[in-house]
């Protein structure tokens, strides 16, 4: 059974988003996504400072099986990227919710509400 923490929001493209106390949004990929991908071997992250729209391609996660685009779940500016992922891409498989990809300063925090909550995401992947 896929793990879907209740305190996160989810995009239909399988990214998770967490609103931090300082208003930034942390982004990663779900347990369902890492399981479908198989062993992750390379990750391409956006550049710090890049402005992204909601749903725009933000990076690539490459597994032994396939390369998959990562999309910004909400619009905003990239304020941080997780460079440690380059050295241990397998942490995405081992700890998908602890392995963040990038942080955004959202242009419109209300966009988070449009993302799926854990129940809705769970239903969408069960189908």
């Amino acid at each position: 059974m896929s793990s879907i923490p209740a305190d996160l929001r989810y995009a239909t493209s399988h990214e998770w988003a967490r609103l931090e106390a300082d208003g930034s949004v942390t982004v990663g990929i779900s347990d369902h996504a890492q399981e479908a991908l198989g062993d992750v071997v390379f990750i391409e992250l956006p550049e710090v400072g890049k402005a992204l729209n909601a749903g725009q391609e933000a990076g690539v996660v490459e597994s032994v099986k396939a390369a998959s685009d990562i999309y910004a779940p909400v619009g905003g500016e990239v304020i941080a990227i997780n460079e440690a992922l380059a050295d241990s891409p397998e942490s995405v498989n081992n700890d998908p919710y602890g392995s963040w990809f990038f942080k955004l300063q959202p242009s419109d925090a209300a966009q988070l509400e449009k993302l799926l909550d854990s129940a809705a995401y769970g239903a969408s992947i069960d189908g």
Partner: protein
Amino acid sequence: MGQCTPLYDLHLALGAKMVDFGGWDMPLHYGSQVEEHHQVRRDCGVFDVSHMTVVDVLGSEAKDYLQRLLANDVARLQAPGKALYSAMLNEHGGVIDDLIVYLLDSSPAPSYRLVVNAATRDKDLAWMRAQSGDFVVELRERSDLAMFAIQGPKARAKTTELVSQSRAKLIHDLAPFQGLADGEWFIARTGYTGEDGLEIMLPAGEAVAFFNDLVGAGISPIGLGARDTLRLEAGMNLYGQDMDEQVSPLAANLAWAVAWEPAERAFIGREALQRQRQEGSHSRLVGVVLEERGVLRANQVVRVDGVGEGEITSGSFSPTLGKSIALARVPANTGDRAEVEIRGKWYPLRVVKPSFVRHGKVLI
């Protein structure tokens, strides 16, 4: 649901993610294919390869038949237990399948065991039967046998601790590329990983118990995902990807497995192959390494400056090298550099001999 080996339920119990392979439901991995790959290179692991096809070739003209059927020459097998790798060609010199053949017994007449691919079973058996008409030969498919591969530097040592005394002695004395019977078991020192190890054929009814013994002794179960990255690192071809019926062994790095002598041996495909050899093969199979991040995959286009184009036939991530490697079919006069197109951009490739890792050592 496809065909299942005797170990299907056991794979599920061990946490396998199952996939279809050539009509069989097989374990892709049991958690992490990269970890399983490392386990085989460093220690050992066990693969269920019971989906592969085992065919015994018996009868007074078994040798003559195989000398006609196969591009390599079974006359090279001088003593029981000796094995060789061969392609089986059609009249145009295209590869129908690749296989291993063991000499089972030399008297009263030589008898052999062939192990051919799972995905090509029906095609291979139909072809073999069609070619047998002129010979006093019997083809006996051994679907009563399961098969495991136990591979890695510690494979033989760990296996000897789990089998009978006579089998332990057999394993201890076994030379590379030799296979011998002990009762209903057949134990060979062959494999598809580039490591030392064994391939064991045993009655299907004993498969679950023995696999349980192996896993219970701490030998990791290994799935098809790691099987593919291991064989690719070892430079071993995968039928259907690196060659098929449209491809000559000369363009698939298999020329070494064609026995041209004696010149009178009229194996199927010889004439076509001889013509190709005279003209010179237009393409060859090479190894390539992607120096940057990314993963090479089958059918990506390869470009060789001033020479022409080719393609990746098998590509993946190499856990031992930490970068992507592949086999590629390229123009015959390709040098040591090329480029590959991945998702619309070109990346540099290093061209190397198609053998990247053997016995845990990086060769390139």
